[in-house]
Structure formats: C-alpha cells, structure tokens
C-alpha cells in the first residue's frame, strides 16, 4: 500500500521548515477582490465562475457587505457547460449588460476561477476581444483568482501582474522613479509619499493606482519597492520590463518601516546621515506608541496559522519589537528571495511551516497552548471555545498597519484580544 500524501507525517526539511500537504483553511485568490475593488475606484471585477465563487466573495469579509459593490459574478450554468450556448457569447452579453449599468467603470477585470480554469475558458482572448469592442472607454484585463492556483493574497499578485503589461513605458530620458507595489490604505500611501519627499525622493508612484487613469509609467530607471510580501509574480513581470527591485524587509513596525524606507533612500543615493535625520523622529514616535503594547505582550507566546503570506514579516515584528515568543509561524507559501531580509531577522530556531494540514496544525497548536493564536475566521471562534485566545488574521489585510504611524495600531490588534480576556467577567 502506498502511503497517501495527506496522511504522511512530515518531518521538518533540512532548512528546518515544516512543509505540509492536506486540508488548507485559507481563502482562494478571488478574495482579494474584496479590497481591490475599493482600492481602484473606477475598476470592476467580474468573476467568471460558479455560484460558489459569488457566495465566497459576498461572505469573505466575515459578514455580507451591503453597498453596491464593484464586483459581480458571471455564474456559469448547466447550459454553458453542456455547450448549449457559447460561453464567449454569454460572457460578451454579460459584460455589455454590466457596462451599460455601470458607465463609470473604466477598467474591467475578468477574473478566472476554479471552474473556468478547469473547463479551460480562455479569458485572455475574451479580454482582448472585449477591450477592442469597448475601447477607448473601457479597458478589459484578465487574471486568475482560482483556488487551484492561488491562495488568498496571491489574487492581488495576479491582478497586479495583469496590470504590468499595460503600464506606459517611461521615456528613455526619464529621471529615476520609485514604484511602490502592493495595495495600501490611502492614508498609509499619503504618509509614505510625505516621507519619501522628506527623504528627497519625489518621483514616487503606487501600484495599484487609485484610478485606472493614473497608471504609472515604468522603465529601466524605475526602482520597485514591494510593500507586501506576496507579490512574486508582479515583481517578476516588472523586472522583465526592466525595473529593478529594491531588496528590503517589509514596512511593518518601526524597525521594518525604517529599513524599508532606508533601502529605498539608499537606492536613490540619499546620504545615510539625511536618512537618519529624517527617520529618527518618526522612529521615536513609533517606539513610543509601541512601548505600551510591549509591556502587555512581551513574553507572550504566539502561534500563527498560514493565511496571507504576511506572517513572516509579522512574526519578525512581534518577536523583535514587541518581545513575543514565536511558537510556530505558518505561511501558505514561502517566497525565500523576497523574504530573505525578513528570515535573517527572525530569532534563531523559529519554527516555520509552509502549506497546511489544518488538523495536524491544530493538534500542534492545542498541545502548545499559546497565549495568542493568529488564524482565519473559520478557526477563531472554535479555538476561543476551546479556551485559546485568537486574533483573526484577515483584519491584518483590511486594516492600515504599515508604516511608522501605524506601528502602534498593529501592536494593538494583538493586545486587544488579550486585554479583552482580562476585562470580561462573564
């Protein structure tokens, strides 16, 4: 009898990372639409998929969101699969219907799903055809958010990768520019823009932009600074267009923000003295904000389930700036290259895990009895009912946490569940 992969006990590999294969309690890439459709104000996301896809997106934020969303699902039905109708004709009809209803839409993403991938519906051809039909008013692009190919935040990676080919080419003579990649809260973007200006970097653009008419031009003089750790494909696509990536840790916490900004400054030839002078007061303010939470959280043991790929930078922040003890740090996917600086900063011997077998991971978590568990919405209440204290990880994606001014807010997200335990007497 062959040993099934799923039941296999996986020993840590030689690099010490526990790699597991089994049930994954993570979202698929479609979930990224929940924040992307708000970030790009004139974009619309049309999932080509099943009723499950539609149901997922409307449930993904934990509760249903009741506002006219800039996303929808073209739900495939029996007749689409049986070939009774041409799926492309159907898609064209639905896109026409949608654009007639929403004339404010300038950028339409056709988003592939598990079923559309399995039946091999070619959305790139559909996007091309529809782009021609609705040009110049509407540009149509496509990417896949399917669960068979992407987890959670990889949906944003796929979406941004789809944007790269349509970014305008910068002039040959263009002066060096900085492109910050990864959706950030508007307030965080504005703060970073001010700090970059103070550092002397004023040619800064963000991807994704707030409006599709503000697509940044890129070229060999463009330096790319990733704001999120899950953008492997986007970075590769940008590099293929000649951009150069600035290696840096991610801007979580005072230390992460300082290193991230300093790496950019370094790439733009800003003097170290000026960097120190500029960042010192910001760093001090972040440290002040963190001090209170450090007192509450230092020495507490935290277990991170895999969710958004933000776990490694987060663990680095929790260990180094807050003094928490890392029991296990799970990530759905470990991008060694982009996380090199982060991995080097983790305390020696930190147990990392990649992929998931949720039942085994829960066994380890229960055995370790951590003070705080960072996990997804499907696990949080059941673990609370078992007497563990949890922090839902999706909030880390839906909350402004990057940068100096948010360092305290980030720490507070972890302190709040523990504080709540001490307050409640019921």
């Amino acid at each position: 009898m062959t040993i099934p992969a799923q039941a296999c006990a996986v020993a840590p590999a030689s690099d010490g990372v526990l790699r597991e294969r089994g049930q994954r309690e993570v979202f698929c890439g479609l979930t990224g639409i929940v924040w992307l459709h708000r970030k790009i104000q004139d974009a619309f996301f049309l999932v080509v998929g099943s009723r499950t896809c539609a149901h997922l997106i409307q449930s993904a934020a934990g509760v249903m969101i009741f506002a006219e969303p800039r996303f929808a699902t073209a739900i495939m039905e029996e007749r689409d699969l049986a070939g009774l109708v041409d799926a492309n004709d159907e898609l064209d009809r639905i896109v026409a219907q949608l654009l007639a209803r929403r004339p404010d839409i300038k950028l339409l993403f056709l988003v592939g799903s598990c079923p559309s991938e399995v039946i091999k519906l070619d959305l790139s051809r559909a996007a091309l055809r529809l782009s021609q039909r609705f040009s110049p008013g509407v540009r149509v692009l496509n990417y896949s958010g399917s669960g068979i190919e992407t987890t959670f935040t990889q949906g944003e990676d796929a979406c941004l990768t789809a944007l790269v080919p349509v970014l305008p080419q910068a002039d040959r003579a263009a002066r060096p520019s900085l492109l910050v990649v990864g959706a950030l809260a508007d307030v965080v973007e504005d703060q970073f823009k001010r700090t970059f200006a103070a550092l002397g970097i004023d040619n800064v653009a963000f991807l994704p932009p707030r409006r599709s008419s503000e697509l940044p031009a890129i070229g060999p003089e463009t330096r790319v600074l990733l704001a999120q750790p899950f953008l492997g494909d986007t970075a590769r696509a940008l590099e293929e267009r000649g951009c150069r990536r600035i290696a840096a840790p991610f801007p979580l916490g005072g230390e992460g923000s300082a290193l991230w900004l300093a790496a950019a400054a370094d790439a733009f030839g800003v003097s170290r003295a000026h960097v120190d002078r500029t960042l010192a007061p910001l760093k001090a303010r972040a440290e002040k904000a963190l001090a209170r939470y450090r007192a509450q959280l230092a020495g507490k043991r935290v277990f991170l389930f895999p969710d958004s790929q933000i776990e490694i930078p987060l663990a680095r922040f929790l260990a180094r700036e807050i003094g928490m003890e890392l029991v296990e740090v799970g990530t759905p996917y470990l991008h060694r290259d982009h996380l090199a600086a982060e991995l080097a900063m983790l305390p020696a011997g930190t147990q990392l895990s990649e992929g998931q077998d949720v039942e085994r991971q829960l066994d380890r978590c229960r055995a370790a009895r951590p003070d705080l568990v960072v996990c997804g919405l499907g696990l949080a209440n059941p673990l609370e009912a078992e007497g563990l204290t949890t922090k839902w990880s999706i909030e880390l994606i839906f909350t402004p946490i990057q940068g100096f001014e948010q360092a305290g807010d980030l720490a507070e997200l972890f302190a709040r569940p523990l504080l709540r335990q001490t307050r409640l007497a019921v």
Partner: protein
Amino acid sequence: MQLSVWTYEGPPHIGAMRIATAMRDVHYVLHAPQGDTYADLLFTMIERRDRRPPVTYTTFQARDLGGDTADLLQSAARAAYERFQPQAMLVGASCTAELIQDDPGGLAQALRLPIPVIPLELPAYQRKENWGASETFYRIVRALAASSAEGSPRRQREAGARPVCNLLGPTALGFRHRDDLAEVTRQVVELGIEINVVAPWNATPSDLARLPQADFNIVLYPEIALTAAQWLHRQFGQPHTKTIPIGVGATRDFIAEVAGLAGIDPAPVLARSESRLPWYSRSVDSTYLTGKRVFIFGDATHAVAAARVATQELGFEVVGLGTYAREFAREIREAAALYGVEPVITDDYLEVEARVSELRPELVLGTQMERHIAKRLGIPCAVISAPTHVQDFPARYSPQMGFEGANVLFDTWVHPLMMGLEEHLLGMFREDHEFADHAPSHLGAAPAAPQQPQLRVVETVTSNELAWASDAERELTKIPFFVRGKARRNTERYARERNVNLITLETLYDAKAHFGR
C-alpha cells in the same frame, strides 16, 4: 451565464453542510479545491458556532488535476474517519470537483469503512443551497431510516399510549431555527405529544434510524424537510403537517392539524394559548397600520406566511409577493393570486430592486438583500427570511413561529414604521427645520439618490409629455419623504389617465381626493 451581484442562496454543497453541521456524529468529506473552506466561516462567524463544521475538504490544486485527485479523496476520507470516528459519512463534490468527475461517492464506498457512507449528487450548476439541504436530508434519512430494524411499517400504537411525532427541518445557519424549534417543541409538549426525534438539529445517525417509530412528522421548513417527510410517508405511512405556524391564525391552524394527526382534542390548548398580537393589533394606536402597502420577498414558506400575517393580523395591504426559490414558485403564485398581485419569482437581486422601486411600498418584509434595497430607497424594512446575516442570530429568544413568534413579528414589523401621532406632526408642520428630509430620523435619511449617481435604478419615470408646475412641485415637498414617492406616482398616474400634461396644485389635490390616503 447569469450576472449576479448578490446571490440569495449558496451552492448546493452549502445546503449539505447545513445538514451535516446541524447533526452530531456525522462527517462530510467534500471534494473541493483550496478556497472552498470559506464556507466554514458562515457557521463559525455568522452563526457564531463554537465548533468547526464537520467537513473535510480534499483541497486539490492545479498540479493534482489529471493526477491523483482520486487518491486525495480516498486518503482524506480515510483520515477523516480515523480522526473523527463518525457514525456516518456524507461524501460529495463542490462545483469544481463536479467537473473533474472523480465519483467521490464511489471512491469513498470503495474504502469499505465500517460505517454507512452516503454519496451526495448535488448538481452545482443547476441547483442551489436549499435544494442541496433538502436532498442531503432526504438521502441521509433514506439511508439510515431504511436500514433500521424498525424499518418495517409503523406499528399501531396501543390505546391510551401518548402519540409520538418527529420534528423535521431545523438546520444550522437557518433563519431563527434555534428559537422556532424551542417554541414549537413547547407547543407540541403542551398538547401531550411525545417528541421522538428532532432532525437534523442535534440528531445523530442512530437517532435518524429511530424516525420510523413516530406516528407522524411535523415539517417546520418544507424547503428542507418536505422531500424527506414525503418519503417517510410513502415508506412508513407517517403523515406530516402542512401548516407552518407563523402568525396567530396559522399557529392555531397548526395546533388543530397536529392534534388531528395525533388523534387528540386541541380545544383545551387552543383555549389556553394566547398571543399579544391580536390585542396589540386591535389597540387604537395600530389603526395607522391600516392599509400600509407592503412588499414581501423571501423563501416561499416565510413569504407566504408573512403575507397572511400582514393582511389578516396587521391589516396591511400586500402590493408585492415573491421568492428566490424557484422550487416553490407554485406556492407563491397561488398566494399572489389570493392577494391580487403579480408574483415575483426571481433570484436576480437587480430585478427585485427594480420591482420594489416601481411599487414604492411603505414597508418591505424581505431578506438581508431587500433590507439593503429598502435602505437605499428610504423605505422601512424588516427581515423575515434567509439568507442570513450575523444579526439574524440574536442573543435573545426571538422565534418566528408559534404564539411568541407572533409577538416577535408584531414588534419587528411595526417598529420600523413611523408611529401614528408622530406621523401627523410631521405632516402638519413640514417647515420645522428638524423635520427636514436630511434631519436625523429613526427612519434613516431620505432616499439617498445622490449617493449612487452612477447607478441606473429603474425609477418611476416622469414621461416626457408630463410636467409639474412649480407650485405643485413645491407642495409635493411638504409631504413627508416616505410617502412622497407614492403621492408623486399617484398624481402622475391620475394626470396621465386624464391626458393632463401640466400637473398643477389642483391636479395634485384632485388626485389626492381620487386615491384617498
């Protein structure tokens, strides 16, 4: 393909999860890609369940396709059996797995586990959540009740023995199922009837094997339990109830029906039982409810029941009645005919929105989707049916069924409306600045059309040939915003019918006299 902004129902495997999660000692192995685990949060977050749904997802990825997805299913099923030791296992596919045609049921049965393995065929591209729940419940009842030792036709009960029934229908993630069950249980026990099995709520597979021991079945939610009840009727001769005890009248009818099936006299219980609704509805303060125009939409059972309560017990006028559940379109058509309205049978949220917008009701009784529509149009709304939202699982006892349920209906439907004298004051002193349309109000703000300028909602359009004189238009603003749409609509209809092209003050008041309030 169907363009869907919001969906009223999930896919059918979510229905199967609602059955599995409601039960104990059952495990559901779902052949599904990464990401389908989102469904867990419906139960752990929306319903605040303290346990994960008993579901194992095979979590296949692109690289598994064409390879060993079948192995994956078998190893997942075996691991789930070993870890959870269920009494029975459900096995099925989500939408993506349906396309790869692995035959999960057959693969799991081939493992020869020492428990019943029940394959589920839930066509994800044809059917939806409620159908999936109904089919799953039917399959599991059929598999477990038929194989039981008591599978032979029901024995006649000895004279003098207490009648025995089953309560069928309450599921996880059901709209007020928890509290309806408590209320109906209390009522049935008061009648002196013994409850044999409640299912699927908290039932184990061995409980289902005892279903045939009851004299009859009470079907609380036909969307979930009717198919199973019909099978039990055919197989074991158990009759089942048809009345849904929502509202005072229906509850009394239900008691009479149950007593009839049990062979007992309902009169003593009917004489004792009471609800506050009849007196609250007859008290003078409620006269302002008379003829309020109400639009009703939901699952068929709740919508039909709401229409009866609205007309007979609150004195409203039903102006629209519909459901998203095509399986129960017939029930809605019949009810709509009763109230002389056009049935709305659609699962297209945009179509429902257009209908509400066109009918301009004074109250919407709907789902969370209609709550959103009503909010946008500035119409009061109460929620009467799934799909559910975290707010539909209140901490307090809040049934829809039985006499206490009727009290709950009175409160939740009436509170969103403007109270009588308050309405008069608003009408009399329109110029009070605090009565301005955008002043804070418990009814919410005025219809916030400017918030969604880009949205083309179908509105009652003023046709080109019809114009409003400025003084008439000004007079219209003196009418409170929540009835202004109706006044405008009536006046324009009146003008059009009489070929009046310019609506003057006179036309406005002529129309008012013509239509009444």
